[in-house]
């Protein structure tokens, strides 16, 4: 049974009362929220995800107003993780974005059976492209563009390398678009579904793009890491793929690992293995069609 099989009133009731249990890649999560913006976001962006048994969840995420006067005055929203609040509240119209950020935080801070990089991952023909990049590099726009043209989405934010294998695992979740990228994707992929828009966040304006159904269906199919590509959007720049020194790429990957300092030499060996498996490049682009041509030509 999928989220889409629930009526709006049943979805609202579950989110408010016992929690909505869904499967996202290898994880089950329980979401609790009485906020209509979260209900709308889940209905719009998670409709293709399977419901999970409601007796266990890897992560319990609650997105609700604070239990204080701020419920009415300049309304805010809190993230509760297993019952406690790790962060300060945010304005209420950022509730759905807060859910997505909170989910990232839960995995990145606690899931140490994987080496986790801050990177997008896409796949074609069983081979994965790992794209680590700092905010503002155009990573999410590139990912959204490629995914809308046939690449399978593994993740927009978290590259998951299980410690027991040489694969990369999928964690397909909505792609986080910021600022100008939102309108770029509306124009580039007119059929794409966007969730609630959050304004004036710490990242500017944020909206999440729905994952193609095929990526959700195949969420448990891993892939072989084959390319590490560091993308950078540069206005007016021709799409260019430039080979990179593996050791230099290794250092950048280590900088982008959430749990490198937790896993220590295990992470070192794991990252070394990823570099051994992959061709490594820097990629500068301006136009998504040109980027698509280069990515489709990877061999």
């Amino acid at each position, binding site marked *: 049974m999928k989220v889409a099989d629930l009526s709006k009133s049943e979805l609202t009731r579950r989110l408010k009362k016992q929690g909505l249990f869904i499967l996202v890649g290898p994880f089950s999560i329980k979401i609790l929220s009485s906020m209509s913006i979260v209900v709308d976001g889940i209905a719009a962006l998670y409709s293709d995800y399977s419901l999970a048994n409601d007796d266990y969840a890897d992560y319990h995420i609650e997105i609700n107003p604070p239990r204080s006067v701020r419920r009415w005055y300049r309304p805010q929203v809190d993230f509760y993780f297993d019952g406690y609040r790790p962060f300060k509240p945010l304005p209420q119209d950022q509730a759905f974005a807060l859910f997505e950020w909170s989910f990232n935080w839960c995995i990145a801070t606690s899931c140490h059976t994987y080496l986790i990089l801050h990177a997008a991952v896409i796949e074609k023909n069983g081979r994965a492209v790992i794209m680590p990049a700092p905010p503002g590099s155009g990573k999410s726009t590139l990912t959204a563009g490629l995914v809308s043209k046939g690449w399978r989405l593994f993740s927009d934010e978290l590259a998951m390398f299980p410690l027991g294998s040489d694969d990369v695992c999928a964690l397909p979740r909505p792609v986080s678009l910021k600022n100008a990228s939102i309108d770029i994707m509306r124009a580039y992929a007119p059929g794409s579904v966007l969730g609630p828009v959050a304004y004036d966040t710490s990242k500017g304006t944020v909206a999440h793009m729905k994952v193609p159904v095929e990526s959700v269906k195949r969420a448990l199919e891993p892939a072989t890491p084959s390319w590490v590509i560091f993308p950078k959007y540069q206005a007016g720049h021709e799409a260019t793929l430039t080979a990179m*020194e*593996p*050791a*230099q790429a290794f*250092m950048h990957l280590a900088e982008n690992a959430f749990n*490198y300092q937790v896993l*220590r*030499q295990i992470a*070192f*060996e794991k990252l070394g293995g990823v570099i051994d498996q992959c061709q490594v490049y820097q990629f500068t682009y301006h136009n998504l069609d040109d980027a698509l041509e280069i990515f489709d030509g990877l061999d």
Partner: protein
Amino acid sequence: MNSMNIDSQLPWCLHPYFKPHIKHWGQDYVLFDEVSGDTHILDSLAGFVLSTLMSSPATVDALSGRLSEDQDCPIEELKSLVSDVLIELAELDFVDRVST
């Protein structure tokens, strides 16, 4: 200290509080120190010296001799380069002289 002060026949070893793991691709090395948790990128000479000392202590003469098998460079020049690298690595507490 400079390379002129190093006795090329005295052996060097890894510092006792330095537990490196090394990987390399061609001439470029990366190193993880199990004790500090730090990761470093190394040039080929430092990578070669540390990789060799991970197996067993070695003198400047021995290190330079092994290097000369692959390098088209006069041995005296290699000794000077190896000595300089050892001094730099010693300043980082990566290597030490073998205590007698």
